[in-house]
């Protein structure tokens, strides 16, 4: 250290100059941010694939998100990003009070964001707008009775979740197909049962609802290893016809179903004409909660980091000569804002 007699206390001994230390810290932070971007990219990719395959699910499900709350949260986060940038500026100028005040405001923005997010989550929790088997059918939720509610009332209400659970039991391959339930997949016997059910419902629309309902029910059994033919025989009159169609090309199912693959389970109770309600809506909410949840964790982490630099500011650790930690925490907070800038239109503003 003797050759660094002018070495300030905030300069690490392994750095020659303050400038070098600053550049290293910044590069390190940006490398970390790059990994963060790639982390979120995985979820954005899942979103993109599922939206491309099933746009109807997104168009249906996004209406359960509150655009106003999402928009307010966007404004809150953008404003807190601004106060953070101002805090960095004040820290660079060595203005301790202003820095602390702006950091506190930024923290407040984080609290506001999480508060609004909590209101949104609570609403979804109450109404069963959740992932996987926790998802509750929304017509059942609003008390609209299905046409054959008496036959398999509660069963039908939980159809989307229940359905994929049942289908996923035999193995991964079937689980994969179950994601596309109702598209008339006839590759394996379990899903050809699905195709049959789908086709029957459309073909027998109105007149043979109860029979097709049976077909829907029996496909669970088919999934668990029973032969598709057997289940078709059990289900009564329409099924053998459809079974015959389904094995070679699943022609009836394909011809009858919607182009985008409006699927069987949801439509089982759709005789009362609520419009097109796609199946597997729970996957949208799975994606929604994963993306906003991971983002929310980043907000919490960012608030922790801001609290840390706020304490250090108040303690007098920073000066006009040295305020790098404020700068780097600021970068992290802006990244959180950056992710939300994409999440908001992708989740709330689907057209």
């Amino acid at each position, binding site marked *: 250290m003797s050759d660094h007699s002018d070495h300030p206390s905030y300069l690490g001994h392994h750095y020659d100059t303050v400038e070098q230390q600053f550049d290293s810290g910044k590069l390190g932070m940006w490398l970390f941010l790059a990994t963060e971007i790639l982390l979120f990219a995985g979820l954005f990719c899942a979103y993109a694939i599922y939206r491309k395959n099933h746009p109807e699910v997104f168009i249906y499900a996004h209406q359960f998100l509150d655009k106003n709350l999402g928009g307010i949260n966007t404004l809150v986060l953008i404003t807190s990003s601004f106060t953070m940038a101002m805090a960095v500026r004040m820290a660079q100028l060595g203005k301790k009070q202003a820095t602390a005040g702006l950091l506190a405001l930024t923290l407040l923005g984080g609290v506001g964001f999480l508060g609004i997010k909590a209101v949104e989550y609570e609403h979804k929790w109450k109404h069963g707008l959740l992932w996987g088997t926790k998802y509750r059918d929304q017509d059942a939720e609003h008390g609209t009775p299905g046409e054959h509610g008496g036959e398999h009332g509660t069963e039908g209400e939980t159809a989307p979740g229940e359905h994929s659970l049942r289908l996923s039991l035999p193995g991964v391959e079937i689980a994969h197909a179950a994601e596309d339930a109702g598209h008339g997949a006839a590759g394996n016997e379990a899903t050809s049962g699905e195709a049959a059910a789908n086709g029957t419902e459309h073909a027998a629309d109105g007149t043979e609802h109860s029979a097709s309902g049976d077909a829907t029910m029996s496909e669970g059994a088919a999934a668990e290893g029973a032969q598709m033919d057997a289940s078709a025989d059990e289900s009564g009159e329409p099924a053998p016809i459809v079974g015959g169609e389904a094995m070679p090309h699943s022609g009836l199912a394909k011809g009858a179903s919607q182009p985008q693959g409006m699927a069987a389970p949801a439509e089982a109770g759709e005789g009362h004409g609520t419009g097109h309600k796609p199946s597997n809506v729970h996957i949208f909410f799975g994606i929604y909660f994963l993306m906003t949840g991971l983002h929310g964790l980043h907000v919490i982490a960012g608030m922790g980091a801001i609290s840390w630099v706020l304490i250090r500011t108040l303690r007098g650790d920073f000066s006009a000569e040295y305020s790098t930690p404020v700068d780097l925490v600021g970068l992290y907070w*802006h990244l959180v804002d950056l992710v939300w800038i994409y999440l908001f239109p992708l989740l709330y*503003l689907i*057209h």
Partner: protein
Amino acid sequence: MSDHAEHSGPGHIVSPMILVGTLVALLVLTFITVAVTWVNLGEFNLWIAMIIATIKATLVVLFFMHLYWDKPIIGIVFVTSLLLVALFIGLSMTDVDQVGPQRIPDYAPAVQQSTGS
């Protein structure tokens, strides 16, 4: 480097006018993003939303995150991560476009029946 006499540390200090300008631009663009959804433009709604989001992200990165004044290496790191994301999602999308429909047996809405099964 330093446009402020009292500034003695490293790093560029962004003028408050630029920060306020960025904030205003972000708020206006957020409003436009919401307003666009009032008009039905079909496919283009998604693209417009993504373009606006990218403009917003660019503003945040350039001015709030100081990338405009940073050394080129920072930009290289950031743009590289974006290229990897583009590669990741772009290749996945070509997969969904071309291979996806065939991967699930008999699920191919756009494919003629004769090619099924």
